[in-house]
């Protein structure tokens, strides 16, 4: 049976829909209401509060912690300054992605790494010869993500901490409801937002204080379904959906490189050796075989395929994650792995991995869809990510 997060007493009371799923061994709310519109709107227009405790967390400490993480990660973590957060992925020896997550430098010799899947064994395996200690803190720390335009105002009211001045991808500490918390300006919605980290025993007062402060600003408890739409709008890849950890793949073609999943910007190659460096360099020379791109599904063509069956056009009510083949000139050139209707952009979006040659902006592709039990193809165009990128995210 899945475990309960420290916020469970609150979330379970609020979740009137009883829509839950298992997330990394924990119960997690899909949506509090039977439809997630209100939660989505809160993320984009006010603020949404979501329990992201199941995210795995590892505390990396010790003299060699910076050089150790520089070895593990594709980004040069030695350069990460105290009080800052970064996002990147890590790879195996062959340059295939194992997982992705954030790394926060809390002090000279203390980092926190988050991941989607268990990573303790991998981190320990890379640690030979380094003076570091690695401890998992997943089940000791509760995490709340407060995301949306009003999040800064709400958190400033709830927390005794420097919130106004906390810039994008920075970290600070403070108090909420008289309890110590750690605050990072990070999130998975591509909006202005914060994540609040607290010891399990302080979880409920912290939760209550944020909800209370948010009440007049339209705060909503949000579930994973609404967040899934926002992360697609933000163009964020999801481990286990848009790409798979090399550790869980049965065959080579299921594995991905950082370039293939669009994390080129996170890779810092020219530096001391790190895990996967040689393979990534070789890939750079060889050329990247496929790319993760944003697709915008053509509205007129969507109307057409529905019209053919005598039906009005329909858009997905939830973010979807059943892969769909993507074609060009009748041949399959890739697959779309997740997508959603963006009600703020009024666009039908998808994330897709396509073969070399078909990833340029403006490339026209065909994506499969099923209308009235009949398989059809409709037009989709490669567009830049993120699909939605508000200025407030960074300011």
């Amino acid at each position, binding site marked *: 049976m899945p475990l309960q997060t420290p916020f469970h007493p609150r979330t379970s009371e609020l979740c009137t829909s009883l829509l839950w799923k298992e997330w990394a061994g924990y119960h997690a709310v899909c949506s509090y209401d039977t439809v997630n519109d209100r939660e989505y709107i809160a993320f984009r227009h006010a603020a949404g509060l979501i329990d992201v405790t199941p995210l795995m967390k590892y505390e990396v400490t010790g003299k060699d912690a910076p*050089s150790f993480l520089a070895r593990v990660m594709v980004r040069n973590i030695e350069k990460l300054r105290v009080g800052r957060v970064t996002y990147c992925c890590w790879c195996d*020896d062959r340059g295939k992605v194992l997982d992705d997550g954030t790394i926060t430098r809390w002090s000279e010799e203390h980092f926190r790494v988050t991941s989607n899947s268990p990573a303790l064994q991998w981190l320990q395996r*890379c640690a*030979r*010869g380094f003076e570091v200690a690695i401890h998992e803190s997943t089940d000791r720390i509760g995490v709340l993500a407060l995301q949306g335009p009003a999040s800064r105002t709400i958190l400033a009211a709830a927390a005794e901490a420097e919130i106004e001045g906390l810039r994008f991808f920075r970290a600070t500490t403070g108090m909420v409801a008289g309890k110590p918390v750690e605050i990072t300006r990070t999130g998975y919605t591509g909006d202005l937002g914060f994540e609040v980290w607290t010891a399990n025993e302080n979880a409920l007062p912290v939760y209550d204080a944020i909800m209370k402060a948010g009440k007049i600003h339209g705060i909503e408890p949000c579930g994973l379904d609404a967040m899934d739409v926002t992360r697609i709008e933000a163009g964020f890849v999801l481990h286990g959906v848009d790409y798979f950890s090399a550790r869980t793949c049965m065959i080579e073609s299921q594995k991905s490189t950082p370039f293939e999943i669009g994390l080129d910007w996170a890779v810092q190659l020219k530096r*001391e*050796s790190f*895990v996967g460096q*040689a393979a990534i360099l070789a890939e750079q020379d060889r050329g990247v075989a496929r790319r993760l791109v944003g697709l915008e599904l053509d509205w007129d063509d969507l109307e057409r395929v529905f019209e053919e069956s005598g039906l009005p056009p329909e858009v997905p009510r939830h973010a979807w994650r059943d892969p769909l083949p993507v074609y060009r000139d009748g041949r399959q050139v890739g697959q779309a792995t997740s997508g959603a209707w963006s009600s703020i952009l009024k666009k039908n979006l998808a994330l897709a991995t396509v073969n070399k040659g078909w990833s340029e902006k403006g490339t026209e592709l065909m994506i499969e869809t099923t209308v009235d039990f009949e398989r059809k193809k409709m037009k989709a165009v490669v567009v830049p990510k993120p699909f939605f990128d508000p200025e407030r995210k960074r300011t």
Partner: protein
Amino acid sequence: MSYDTIVIGAGHNGLTAAGLLARGGRRVLVVERRGEVGGLASSTEFNPGYRTAGILHDTTGVRASVIKDLDLEKHGLRRRSEPVPVFLPERKGTGLLLHRDPSKAAPEINSFSARDADRYAKYQAFHSRLGRFLLPLLNGPSPPVAGNDRSDFWGMIKAGMNMRRLGRKEMIEFLRLAPMPLRDWMEESFETPLLQSALAAPGLSASLLGPWSPGTATGLMMYEAVRGAGIQGGAPALVRALLAACESRGVEVRLNESVSRIRLRAGVVVGVTLAGGEELDGSMVASSCDPRTTFLDLMTPRDLPLDLERGMQNFKARGNVAKVHLALTGPLAFACRPDLEPENIRIGESLVSLEKAFDCVKYGEMPVEPCLDVAVPSLSDPSLAPDGGHVVSILVYAVPPTGTLEWTDARREELGDLVVSRLASYAPELRDRIVGREVLTPLDLEREYGLNGGHLYHGEQGLDQVLFMRPVPTCAQYSTPLEGLWLCGSGSHPGGGITCGPGMIAAAAILNS
């Protein structure tokens, strides 16, 4: 200073590789941590006036082509004309003096079993036929059958076709025997326990296995395939000739210098750093150290690919052999045959005793009745001991590896006493003749000779760590995933023992690259 190739370690394999590389025109430096060359083959004075003939004392596996290619005979090496027989003493009875030549062995075996004498001839003939198939495998690089990017299907087919040349019956017999426990093979073949045990023992020396363990038959077949008559004067004579051959070809040897790091730049080897801080440049480094030492100790962890690291962590090198040297005032004489002065002796009464010796090891317990591989090198080289005196060289099977038992001083002496009393139970005058004794536990061997795990063969040689698996598939062709770094020691195919095989094949691979 800059060299073409820097060889780490001046053991017999390091010297062989260095000599052959110099012969191929390379400018070679050998760096040796100890104060003398030879490694496990070097002679040391363990008691005033008494010298050992190396830690390993069996030289029957030395490759003829090394002797030829390095002109070792010109440098003073002499081969024995025939193999030394092995004496198997008994507490009651006359013991068995076992010659390799079946016609010489027949009268001795006959006194135990006429059937066995007959079977012994067939058994030796089987080995020599098998040798024709196995020798090419053991005198060249292993076919890259598996686990390597270069492994090719045709290589595998070729290896398979080679086997067919054995003939149908022999091939099937080989395929049936190879995965077998030695015990089953020996019990099918012979009925005399002493003979079963004497023949099986060498097949077990390289692995942490007893005769009940499947696959041990292969170890014996590989041992028998390369067996020659040995070197006059044993391992030290071989080392002297190798050193002379190296020096005559301009190889530079630096003693008392240990390598602390193999230096890499952007994944490519650029030289080594010595313990004193001195940096030597070389575009190639060939390590004759054991693979775990080479990769886990001599490389910066950050430079080592994780797959290779895991391969090394999983490479088994649990040394289960101890060494005892005895300095005697007189000959080693056995009560069951007082007139005989045997040069090689084996103590291990039966297959069960071999298995029981192995049982203790599993639980990290001191052996009760270890099996002994005994040599008296002073018989052929009297200079090792003062007049009338003798040196007894004893390899003790099996003792617990370092990870399973803490080897204290007290345990070392306990082991020494145990070995002496075991040998003395066959040679009662032994105790009175001992004037000095040296006991080397696996821990001592690890420290003195830089052997990770204290394994005398640089790694166990079960079926999973031979041929294209030795030490790991990606390093099985002597090159490594790190450009410019090569392996040339016993941790590579064809494995350990004083054979010069790995050094020879590695040198050829380097020169071919």
